[in-house]
């Protein structure tokens, strides 16, 4: 009867801990809030002039084109932070302590994932604010904004579960850096910053078939009114698939983790 209540209560406790960590560990905050804003400045202010001309179809502005890509990178940075903090829990032994206590098993990981979701969504809102200040304009309706936020949340969920699994699997914080590099690099080989049409054949094939491209195309469609086509379904399918895979991987690692 009370199992579910306890699970929710323990998850809330773990969430509180995760949020406290975010506040206590300034690097997390700087990475979550500062880096995406810096990237936006970099892409719009530095590369924008050169990339913009050829990139933006139908004479749009580069900042409008690039914001969905930077939002994606925000999610990626959030996920690498998550894998690091899960890994710190593992290596510091506090997960072993939690496992010897009569608490809901899932709460340990749920706390991290929900914490990551909140952290990432807050930084996404901050990023959109900075973008608006820099002249970003969207013709999206409230419903379209909500759709974009929903998709971003889904992607965050997917990457966070993967991040949890990576954090549990890695022997040290350095071990999680491969994952961080991957999620930060993948947006570059997608339609995030330049249209895929300019890429070589093999790279274009990869860019078209990797999960970030449909997500970006969908976000761009929702915020700029460009055609979405099948991208919406493909994006949601990728996110759900990655979330389930990450979840199952995390749970199986968590069950075995104490044996180390």
């Amino acid at each position, binding site marked *: 009867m009370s199992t579910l209540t306890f699970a929710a209560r323990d998850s809330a406790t773990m969430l509180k801990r995760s949020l406290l960590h975010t506040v206590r560990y300034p690097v997390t905050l700087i990475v979550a809030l500062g880096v995406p804003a810096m990237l936006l400045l970099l892409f719009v202010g530095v590369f924008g002039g050169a990339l913009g001309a050829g990139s933006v179809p139908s004479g749009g502005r580069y900042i409008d084109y690039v914001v969905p890509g930077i939002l994606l990178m925000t999610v990626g940075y959030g996920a690498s932070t998550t894998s690091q903090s899960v890994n710190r829990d593992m290596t510091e032994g506090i997960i072993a*302590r939690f496992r010897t206590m009569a608490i809901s098993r899932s709460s340990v990981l749920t706390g991290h994932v929900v914490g990551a979701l909140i952290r990432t969504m807050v930084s996404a809102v901050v990023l959109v604010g900075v973008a608006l200040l820099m002249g970003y304009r969207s013709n999206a309706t409230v419903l379209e904004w909500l759709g974009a936020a929903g998709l971003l949340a889904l992607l965050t969920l997917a990457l966070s579960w993967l991040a949890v699994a990576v954090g549990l699997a890695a022997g040290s914080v350095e071990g999680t850096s491969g994952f961080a590099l991957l999620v930060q690099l993948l947006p570059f080989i997608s339609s995030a910053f330049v249209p895929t049409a300019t890429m070589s054949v093999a790279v274009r094939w990869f860019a078209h078939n990797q999960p970030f491209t449909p997500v970006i195309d969908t976000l761009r469609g929702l915020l700029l009114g460009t055609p979405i086509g099948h991208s919406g379904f493909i994006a949601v399918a990728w996110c759900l698939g990655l979330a389930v895979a990450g979840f199952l991987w995390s749970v199986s690692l968590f069950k075995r983790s104490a044996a180390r």
Partner: protein
Amino acid sequence: MNTAAPSPAITAAGLRKSFGEKAVLDGVDLSVAEGTVFCLLGPNGAGKTTAVRILSTLIEADGGTLRVAGHDPVRESAAVRSAIGVTGQFSAVDGLLTGRENLLLMADLHHLPGRRRRERAAELLERFDLVDAADRRASTYSGGMRRRLDLAMTLVGEPKIIFLDEPTTGLDPRSRRTMWQIVRDLVDRGVTIFLTTQYLDEADELADRIAVLDQGRIVASGTPAELKRRVPGGHIRLQFPDEARAASAERLLAGSSREGELFLNVPGDAGVGALRALLTRLDEAAIEVDALSVHTPDLDDVFFALTGRPAAEAGETANETAGETADDDDQTTENHLVQKESGR
């Protein structure tokens, strides 16, 4: 209690666990009476930590019958977990949270009601002498403070059985004594303690019963007094200014044996009385002594007596396969030396 006779808090029969080819626990039997301190004594890699991890539900045994607080750690893990508290070898505190927040976190996870959780945290900070550091991040704590906080966190849920896995390894002598006092206080409150250590003096100070674990097997068990009777090796070591004096002292003191030109080992009890008597005899015979050191039986002697091998060697061979870190060993040796120098 549902039976007339007090049932043991922890029992294990034929406990076995292997990691790959290596049998870490190879048929361990033990029984810990409620409200007592049981000490599992052994060198690094003997299987102590593995035993704790199995009994505290962290990993499953390959075989054997186990009961912790009357429950099976695998099939009734939730019941076991709500009765136990574990303080591991490497303190599991949250370095980013303050001492108080760490305790409040535990209080929340034990579902203590609102006001009670703050009271409990304040109580434990007071009891573990952490009031001044309560609102500092745990990552700034010294080794001794971290251990105390770790143990305080374990106590938030008022467990009936506490596992202490090498609670003083790496601590300075003063912090060790504080930890010992804490353990004694816990026993006074009726808690059952399952302690692992690699120091005989620690087991001697705290334990009601000791079991010596070597390469996954219990090689001896009994009360500290019973165990020490089986262990020779206590002696007083004298240093003389020249060989002539050493030789005459050797003739004077029956059973003594020379070591080199200037040293003489006198076997036997190293209590204050015996020491005074020895010095008086030397004095009366007008034999001048340069220096004196007291050697009490330690884990090396226990191991040598029980297994025919020095403890360090036993630890090393087991270590290679169990994969404990070299760091750990260094720390241990260092601490051991400090302990010997400070004397007892």
